[in-house]
Every structure is written in structure tokens, then in C-alpha cells.
């Protein structure tokens, strides 16, 4: 139906990355900071980071998603898994979301109901930013 494109894949040239950082900004709180575009290529990276956040810590769990510029259903799926995992340890994951790029996908799918949503770090219970 249409011609084959000569270069078979552009995987290396167009490879994307997301940046994640797990910190303990204050006693009893674990904070995961994520930046980049979350799609089928990068969602596995987010999944690993969220597993580490939810699995290796006790206390309050916060994921700061303000640096995310795109969130696909694959990203929603790993966030939902993390919410369920936190729930099993009796906790609710706090999300810091400021932009439409993340808020819209969460809201239109109802996924936001699984989290405590905040628009900045201070209201999510973090004493001082960065």
C-alpha cells in the first residue's frame, strides 16, 4: 500500500530519555521528581522509579510530575500500578501536578481519583522547595 522506508528504525537517533531523582527532602518523606515525556518508550523507566519510591520507603510518598511535558496511557498505567501498590501498604501517593500536559490526561480518565493531587510541593507537605 505504501513504500517501505529505507532506514528501518530511527530508534537510536530519536531515543528519548526522562530524568528521575529520588530524594528524602525531610524526615519521613520520599520525593520522586520526574521530567520528560512519558510514552511507551519511557514508561518502563518511570515504572522502575515509581517502584523504588513505593517499595523502598515508608512514610509519605510524593511524586513531583511538574517536569513532565507529555503523559500517554502507558504512563497513566504505571501511575495506576504505583497507586495500587501504595494502597496495599496503607498509603496514598501524593502527586504534584501544575500543568495541563499532566493534569488533563489524569482528569479525563478519572485517574486523578487514585491520588492526592497538589499544585505545588509546599501544599503537598514539603517544607521547602528544592
Amino acid at each position, binding site marked *: 500500500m*505504501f513504500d*517501505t522506508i529505507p532506514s528501518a528504525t*530511527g530508534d537510536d537517533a530519536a531515543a528519548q530519555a526522562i530524568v528521575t531523582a529520588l530524594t528524602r527532602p525531610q524526615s519521613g518523606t520520599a520525593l520522586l521528581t520526574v521530567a520528560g515525556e512519558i*510514552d511507551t518508550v519511557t514508561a518502563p523507566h518511570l515504572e522502575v522509579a515509581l517502584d523504588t519510591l513505593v517499595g523502598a520507603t515508608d512514610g509519605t510518598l510524593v511524586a513531583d510530575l511538574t517536569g513532565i511535558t*507529555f503523559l500517554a*496511557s502507558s504512563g*497513566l*498505567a504505571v501511575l495506576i500500578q504505583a497507586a495500587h501498590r501504595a494502597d496495599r501498604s496503607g498509603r496514598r501517593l501524593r502527586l504534584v501536578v501544575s500543568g495541563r500536559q499532566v493534569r488533563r490526561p489524569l482528569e479525563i480518565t478519572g485517574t486523578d481519583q487514585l491520588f492526592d493531587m497538589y499544585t505545588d510541593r509546599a501544599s503537598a507537605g514539603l517544607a521547602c522547595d528544592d
Partner: protein
Amino acid sequence: MSDLDSPHPAETLDGVSTVEVRTSASAALIPTIRAVASDLAARADFDLDAISDLRMAVDEACATLVDVAAPRSALRCTFHVRVDGIEVRVEVEVDEPAATVSTDTFGWRVLQTLADEVDVLAAPTADGGRPTVGIRLDKLAGDPPR
């Protein structure tokens, strides 16, 4: 990308502009396609939520089809931009004539939520070439209340 033999050259007919993007069927190239979707929706005066929804819906359709595409095949994404919305057709070549996309997945439910209309397209054998599978979606410029 400038395939002048394309059956659907960019043009304006009956108020419809057509833009076609063709890439290797690779997940790494989907960011480029969703960027085109965002740009077209913004230029068509979609409201901000509808731009976000179209970008995500196009990403979802492309990701679903890249999963079932034959190795070393192409993905074609055609945007028909109308006054009141954008229709998107995404197609890939597949090896198996019976190949299709599953519609009982989380991703498909998200796609149905994001778009105003969504269908699976299947062409068992087109033009004597490899069979293709596609997804057609339609998104209106002003998100109607649901």
C-alpha cells in the same frame, strides 16, 4: 518525507486541508507525529484541552499500531483538518492478514475517552501489497460536554 507521488498531497478541497506524515513504524518516531498533531490542532484553533487530547489520542493510535506492524515497515498518519475538527487516519503494514488491534485494553478505553469517534480500519490486501491495519479517529475543535 516529501513524497510527491503521495495519493493525498497537502491541499485544500472543500475546506479540508490534508497533511500526511510517513515514518518507519518505530515507537521512537511517534514524538514527531504527535508534535505535528499538536501543531495542526493549535493552528485550527482547538481549545487547549482538545489540543492535549488530540496529541494524546494520536500518540495512543500510533503506539498501538507500531506494536502490530510488520518489521521494517512504514507507518502513515493522515490528518484531514476541517473547520470543526480533525480526522486522523493511522495505518501500518502487517505480516498476518488477520492481524488487528485489540480493543479490550486500557489504552483503547483511553483512546475512546479522548476522541469523539474512533474505529479500527482493516484492509486485508490493498493494491496487491501487504495487508494493513489502521485506526481512524475524529476530534472536534471545541470539546463538547460529555
